[in-house]
């Protein structure tokens, strides 16, 4: 297991190197001046020149990359051209919002997708199954921005059952910063009003973001369950007189789980990229919005920071999934 994790981390180094190289040199191809963009239309030439020198942009590109990499090795992602802060500080402010949203969407996905998939499989070809499948079809076909706007229109503007865009009501001060996930921080500090407010604010964006992946997971769970239900060992288990719950829970579901786990890993990636749109619609101050602003202002140290974070998160999630396999499937462990 240790060797496995080390191998994965070793691979990560190459991923980071590749991503940084690609982003850095792609940024050089854009025919515009990031410094002029950051300082705006009124900036004078002397100002632009001074800032360029300060950022080291007068150096040859290869030298700039060398400097960037030597800093990166020490954990320094450089400074954002636009916000003039360390990129790592910016990420610390924006990343938790995205992680919280993605996690919440993942919870929606798992809590809805798996049970509905199981129920559909157990009631195959009944109206329950048909209902679940129609739900999956709708969820998979609706674009995020549309779902978001409809949910906001109905539950926030019309019915006013749920709060609108943002992570908290404007008048609610955020909890003390521990992880940056408002719900977790509120829980850790026992700040119940903030926990309630932050959770309520999570509902609509999490459903919006999680709808598509719920649909995918529902179908996957259903088909995987159906496949297992038809196996001989299930008949044997039933013949032995095991209760229905035991058969489904211990035998069928456990064996149906590996492909479900795989799809969850893949869905996590799609949730992260889907978060960009959801963040825009729900005024969610996350990394997607930070990335969009950074791209339009050619703030490439910031863009590289975001790319690197994504490059680290994906392999980490994949590794989690792999470890998950070995927990549920002894055959993987043996290998």
């Amino acid at each position, binding site marked *: *297991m240790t060797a496995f*994790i080390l191998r994965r981390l070793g691979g990560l180094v190459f991923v980071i190197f590749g991503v940084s190289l690609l982003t850095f040199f792609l940024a050089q191809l854009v025919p*515009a*001046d*990031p410094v*002029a*963009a950051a300082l705006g*239309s*009124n*900036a*004078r*030439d*002397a*100002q632009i020149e*001074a800032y360029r020198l300060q950022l080291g942009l007068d150096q040859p590109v290869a030298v700039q990359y060398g400097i960037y990499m030597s800093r990166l090795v020490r954990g320094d992602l450089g400074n954002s051209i636009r*916000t*003039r802060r360390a990129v790592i*500080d*910016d990420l*610390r*402010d924006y*990343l*938790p*919002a995205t*992680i919280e949203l993605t996690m919440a969407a993942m919870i929606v996905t798992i809590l809805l997708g798996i049970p509905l998939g199981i129920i559909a499989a157990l009631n195959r070809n009944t109206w329950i199954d048909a209902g679940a499948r129609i739900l999956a079809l709708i969820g998979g076909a609706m674009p995020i921005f549309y779902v978001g706007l409809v949910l*906001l229109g109905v539950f*926030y*503007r019309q019915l*006013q059952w749920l*709060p*609108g*865009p*943002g992570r908290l009501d*404007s*008048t609610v*001060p*955020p909890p003390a*910063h*521990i*992880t*940056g*996930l408002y719900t977790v921080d509120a829980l850790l500090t026992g700040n119940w009003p903030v926990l309630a407010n932050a959770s309520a604010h999570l509902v609509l964006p999490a459903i919006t973001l999680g709808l598509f992946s719920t649909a995918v997971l529902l179908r996957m769970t259903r088909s995987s369950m159906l496949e297992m239900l038809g196996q001989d060992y299930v008949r044997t288990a039933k013949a032995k007189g095991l209760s229905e719950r035991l058969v489904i829970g211990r035998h069928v579901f456990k064996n149906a789980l590996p492909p479900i786990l795989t799809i969850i890993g893949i869905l996590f990636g799609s949730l992260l990229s889907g978060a960009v749109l959801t963040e*825009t*619609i729900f*005024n969610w*101050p996350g990394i997607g*919005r930070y990335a969009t*602003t950074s791209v*339009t*202002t050619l703030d490439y140290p910031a863009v590289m920071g975001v790319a690197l974070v994504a490059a*680290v*998160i994906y392999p*980490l999630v994949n*590794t*989690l999934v792999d*470890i*998950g396999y*070995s*927990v549920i499937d002894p055959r993987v*462990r043996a290998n």
Partner: protein
Amino acid sequence: MTQKRSSTLWRWTALLVLVAMVLSACAAPAAAPSAPAAGGEEAAAPAGDEITRDNTLVFAADMTDIITLDPAVAYEFGGILPVGNMYETLASFDPGNPEIVPLLAESWDIADAGDMWTMTFKLNPAATFSSGNPVTADDVVFSWNRAMEINKSPAWLLIDVCQMTKETIVAVDAGTVELKIPKAVSPNVCLAVLTFTVAAVVEQAALEPNMGDDMGESWLNDNSVGSGPYVLNGWERSSTVTLDANPAYWGGTAPAMKRVILQNMPESANRQAAIETGDADIVQELGPEQAAALEGNPDVSLVKGLSTLLAYASVNATMPPFDNADARQALRYAINYDNIITLLGGNGELVQEIIPIGFAGHVGNNPFTQDLEKAKELFANAGVTEGAVIPFTVATGTGPGGVDWATIAASIQADLAQIGITLDIQLLQQSELLTKYRAQELPMLLMNWGPDYTDPDANGTPFANYEANSLAWRNSWNDPQAIELSKQAAVELDPATRIELYAQLVEYMQNNGPFAMLYQPSRVYALRNNVQGFIYDPGDTPNVSFALISK
């Protein structure tokens, strides 16, 4: 069995460690930089003055551009708004009046000292910082020197426009500041610059112990040391700036709104929803569609105010066909201005000169209406025949007044098509467009300009003076007469003569310059009906004074 259990345990541990790794990517260090400095935060809200939704103002706007709350550094709309409500300058503007009026200084005097001007400011003895300490001449000198030493985006206003140096600012006594500026600098212009946040006064005694290694720049992002009606409660970098009323405000009664929350809301659809539901009390900047949707809403009222921006089309005066003055004039006659104003849906006014409405020196004469025959004739004089193709570079996204740049460009394109000239529209990301514009590479483009300070010189010099390396230069328009006029007008002290000089410059530019000035956009605010005392004053810093607002 035991072995199996321990290996399962090991697997779960590994799983937990990895989850922790993902989470720790976003965990802040134990001593978060956003933690308030001792005594800094709680001092803001006095005991017994409880903060409720009724005495809290929620102001939603696109504040994506905010990067600092240090008055010496702030140069973005998002930052200047809170900074201008926390810090004060020696002089200021009254809403709707281009005259400069006292603020921290109760009076000033401008004297001819041979080769220099001497500006002497008498501070108001009543003026105090939020700490209760008096505002002294030493604080003023310290603040200006600090801004020049930090030398970030707005510092050029002091260093280049006022030509201030450390040696030319003197604290004569506790209540008197003396500033000497070269004769080439207009005292009017310098005074206008001194109303901007870069010249705001910070309390030396409160800031000095917290300067760290960056002159206190980062400390001021979480603390305030000003004399204004509000103090900083906190800045949640990605979303909100929270201000609390300064209970001991020296300039009149304490503000009615005990707390002001500036909420970053980049999407105008979200701002519309926030004002409809009452989540926000004021929202800043709505497009024509959102404004129309709110028009009949009984809970909301709209306030429109002209900004100081000017939108224009410009041409490069060294590239054919616009190297010919007739061709430039032809363009001004070819444009259907009415159509552009219609497209703006009430979000802008026709302005065909380089000085915006609200500034001294604005003439208010719009000599051009579409005259295709005349345009055709002038183009013919310049040797431009039917079938000519001219590249027209336009930024992607929304222009001032809430209409896409491309929509306005298409309107101008249709105008010129009527006389057989094809404008080849090329859409570019704004940053890319700017890079090419600065390199004098664009034959024709659409853009806007906002003055850096409230004085006609803030437009006169960039539009007319090639030597200033600004707009005239970017359009390769090197015209000795325009340069001379702009220089004369800048330093003229007699107000009437100065206005006359600007009128001459405006007319000269209208007939010779590389610009077809199009419109001055409005900014649209929506207010909940219980909000009172709201004024949008585009020429002043800040544009919106929260201390005037009540509910």
